[in-house]
């Protein structure tokens, strides 16, 4: 496959994913798994490491696509390789005491430095940190606030369902409770997010 047809295929795939086509994502996922798995295994990782790294990488890609902010200057394959390579390198350096970690690269995945992957990764890291803080804040919030908020915002349940689930007398009490919980969550979240 020459590069123009490859790019065209990539663009089609990205459009499909952006439109929420799960089959397209599945196809993409299957397509590039062998490459990343091989790369990680070759660089003293296990199958599980490979899976983690690959899922992380696909996540970065997927979120960028969904946001519509992906600016791809190369093939998806190269982009994913660059992202996963970076992720694995980071894990390796934190895992091993050796500072100079050298990776065995597959030459056919081309130049991976000018893919814009670095910036996307920084962005993704920032987001990860935010989510981690949020998850922590939710844990500290305690019941029933946590399940209430998770139910409403994370699981997209309706207020009626939540009212019944938590045994409130009517939807308005549940709503008031929700807003109170939200104010407490705000304090917890911004306190730890700003200081970090």
């Amino acid at each position, binding site marked *: 496959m020459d590069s123009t047809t490859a790019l065209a295929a990539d663009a089609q795939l990205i459009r499909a994913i952006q439109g929420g086509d799960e089959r397209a994502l599945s196809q993409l996922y299957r397509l590039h798994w062998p490459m990343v798995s091989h790369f990680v295994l070759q660089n*003293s990782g296990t199958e599980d490491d490979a899976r983690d790294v690959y*899922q992380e990488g696909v996540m970065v890609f997927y979120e960028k696509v969904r946001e519509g902010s992906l600016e791809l200057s190369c093939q998806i394959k190269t982009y994913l390789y660059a992202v996963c390579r970076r992720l694995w390198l980071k894990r390796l350096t934190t895992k091993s005491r050796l500072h100079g970690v050298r990776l065995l690269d597959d030459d056919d995945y081309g130049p991976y430095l000018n893919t814009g992957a670095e910036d996307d990764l920084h962005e993704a890291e920032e987001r990860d940190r935010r989510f981690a803080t*949020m998850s922590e804040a939710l844990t500290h919030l305690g019941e029933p606030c946590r399940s209430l908020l998770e139910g409403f915002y*994370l699981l997209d349940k309706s207020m009626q369902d939540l009212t019944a689930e938590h045994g409130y007398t009517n939807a308005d009490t549940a709503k008031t409770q929700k807003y109170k919980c939200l104010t407490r969550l705000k304090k917890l979240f911004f306190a730890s997010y700003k200081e970090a």
Partner: protein
Amino acid sequence: MQTEADYYALFEAYQRGELAAGARADLEARLSADPRLHQRYTEFEELTGTLRAYGERRRTRQTINALHTAMLAAEEAPADMEEKQAEGLSYSVNPRLSISRTERRLREFWSGHRATMGVAASVAVLAVFCTLLGLDLWRATTAAPASGLRELRGEVARITRRTDALTRKVNNVTGTIESVAPVRVNKYSGTGFALTADGYLVTSAHVIKGADSLLVESRDHRRYHAETVYADRKHDLAILRIKDRNFKPFTKLPYTFKAGQADLGERVYTLGYPREDVVYGEGALSARSGYDGDTAFYQVSIPLNPGNSGGPLLDGQGNLIGVVSSRQDDVLGAAFATKSSYLVRLVDSLKNKQPVQPYHLPRANQLAGAGRPQQLKRLQDFVFVVKVYE
């Protein structure tokens, strides 16, 4: 006074567009006018936005996990299908390698660590060989002469070369330069004696070690070329044969070879060429085993020197009982000689090998009863210098 929760209710309604037009305009005006309210609103937005995004992320993660498991399942499924197809065809098309779980682990481990293992293995191998070689070298340098066993072949060449150099220097000094043709000097010399009347000789194996050519010289300076018939390193015995055409067989040999063992304390003597002239040495048989308990040798208390090797060892009756081999440097007066029984056995075994000339060992002893000087007079014609050229 509105609480924060009340504001949140308001914000949410505003976000969803549930506010009436008047209230909406009112809130927008207040947001642009009141920076504190505005900040509260942005915080609210950020918080709910993050919560929603977090929910989205969790869903995505689940989706991707599902994708992974589906992919793994799909990888295994086609294998089954192929097998089914193969059954239908009754022979297997492109048989798929099925790998067990442990084997896959092993493969992963191998592919992950093969470089490290390779280096480790080669270092180990290298270390082993270095150690072995080092030990060997060390033993060779320190322990080889420590055996204290000195083989008694004379290193003629070294001495002669030194003498030559001296002569040349002297010649230079006196100015009478003669063009001396470079004489080929024998490197080692030892002693040998006749085994049969028709040209077989015996000497020590170490004397002829590494020999290019051998020259045998009798007391009356007649020289014969000789060749090695057999060398037995283990018992330090060698049998030579004179190959000159003009060689006339000896007269009858005056001594016989003793097939049995000699007794302890027997008076023994030898003739040899540690220097140009034949030298007589006398002593007693002091032990019936040699160096390090080697039963193939006798220990004798005869003072012996390099060049004596290969000389005959005779008892008082003129029976040949041994072949001089070596001496022990760190023990006083301990020399070793190969027992004649081994020589006799060697000759017997060689007889079966269709020799060029048959071996006729002497049967009659003409030395018995004679005085020592008479014995020596008859004996010395059968003792030779063996010169070794390399």
